[in-house]
């Protein structure tokens, strides 16, 4: 059973045991519009929570994707780098960016669960 947590910068991390799968939220992909470029960090890179980790770009603008939690990059989604539009089609599924092996599991407690994130989005309007 996996659970998804969100950051205030609209990244998500799906927690799968000691690993986490990172991408941008449905709200973020809607705001960004058509994604035309995605770049994940190299496998093996050590990330601290809050580090700029990946980049997604729409026709108009570039956005950094920050690491929601600390860990080592153990896989990247080469499919999304080749077909960035997957982020628009399926941000939480096939539009994932990279997978990390978590090093600071207690950091996850600081992130929002689905309900808290939905409440947070309401405060942004």
């Amino acid at each position, binding site marked *: 059973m996996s659970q998804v947590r969100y950051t205030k910068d609209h990244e998500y991390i799906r927690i799968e045991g000691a690993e986490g799968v990172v991408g941008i939220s449905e709200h973020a992909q809607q705001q960004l*519009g*058509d994604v*035309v*470029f995605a*770049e994940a960090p190299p496998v093996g890179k050590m990330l601290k929570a809050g580090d700029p980790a990946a*980049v997604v*770009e*729409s*026709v*108009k*603008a*570039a956005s950094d994707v920050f690491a929601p939690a600390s860990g080592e990059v153990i896989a990247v989604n080469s499919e999304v*780098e080749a077909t*960035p539009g997957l982020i628009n089609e399926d941000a939480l599924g096939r539009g994932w960016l990279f997978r990390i092996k978590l090093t600071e599991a207690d950091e996850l407690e600081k992130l929002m669960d689905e309900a808290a994130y939905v409440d947070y989005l309401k405060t942004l309007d």
Partner: protein
Amino acid sequence: MSESAILETPLHALHVELGARMAPFAGYDMPIQYPDGVLAEHLHTRSHAGLFDVSHMGQALLGGADHASLAAFLESLCPADLVNLAPGRQRYTQLLNESGGIVDDLMVTRPPGAAGELRLVVNASRKAVDFALLRERLPKSARLTPLGEAALIALQGPLAAATLARLAPHEGLEAAPFMSARPARVAGFETFVSRSGYTGEDGYEISLPAAQAEMFARLLLTQPGVAPIGLGARDSLRLEAGLCLYGHELDETVDPVEAALGWSIQKRRRIEGGFPGAERIRSALAEGPRRQRVGLRPDGRAPAREGTEILSSDGAPIGAVTSGGFGPSVGAPIAMGFVKRAYAAVGTPAALVVRGKPLNTRVVAMPFHPHAYYRG
């Protein structure tokens, strides 16, 4: 502009009704994109027809005793041959400062039939500056009348001609030459139509009274294949077409030759001069400019945005990107920038510093996507 209240065009309510994402642009609350999104809107314009609200742009009438004296006045500020502009034709030119830098770029139209009248369309962000400059220099016999109560609607794309032909079957607008303009009655609306645009496609820009603009736009949107297009796609379309955007490629430090707009300075003006900065501009025409606007195609998929540093193949700084992004019709990143002249030849390799990493690129010919202007 930032201190004053945000302005709305006559189509503002329609944009909101159509679900546009609105944002401030040049002092106006403008549609950036509609629900279909920038990519779909861009491709729709290239394959069908797009309706653009460009009512934020500055439209004005310049009136004088006769064409010759009025054109001579404007020639004292612009490098195009306007004296020999034929009735019903328009020309692209630039307002210049004393050192030949570009105050604004604009379209100048000589309406058919009218003696001593020119129509101007200038950039929204520059209209206050432009109109002040013109008024300051205006001869006693001439007057400038901003058309504050006129809307401007662009209809662009391969279905544009058939659309206007359907709505105005007796006007013959489908056969109007590129860069011509005249009054036309379209579906009962009194309009002034030019065959020009800012997308690289065939199409029209249609001026009409603000009070009728929404009804007219709604009528156009009922036509097959016509969709509303926001400023996001307008920018990617003009970038693919290799067209300059004021504040990006053009500003008061850039002269028309550096901006690769030498084609807009006709032969008589090159010989005679008589425009601001003529010495600098004629020497740049003769000997080549110090720096030049070029097109760049980055290798790979990463777009290089405005401000990106351009390096020579041996790592020396040679310029910067002025507009850059993803070209939806090209299917790859594209950019325009200024480089030192020695590096401006098509095929020259260079590097773009994106997020600290040099990405290989090369200078390419523009437009990035072929123009489809109506050539009869």
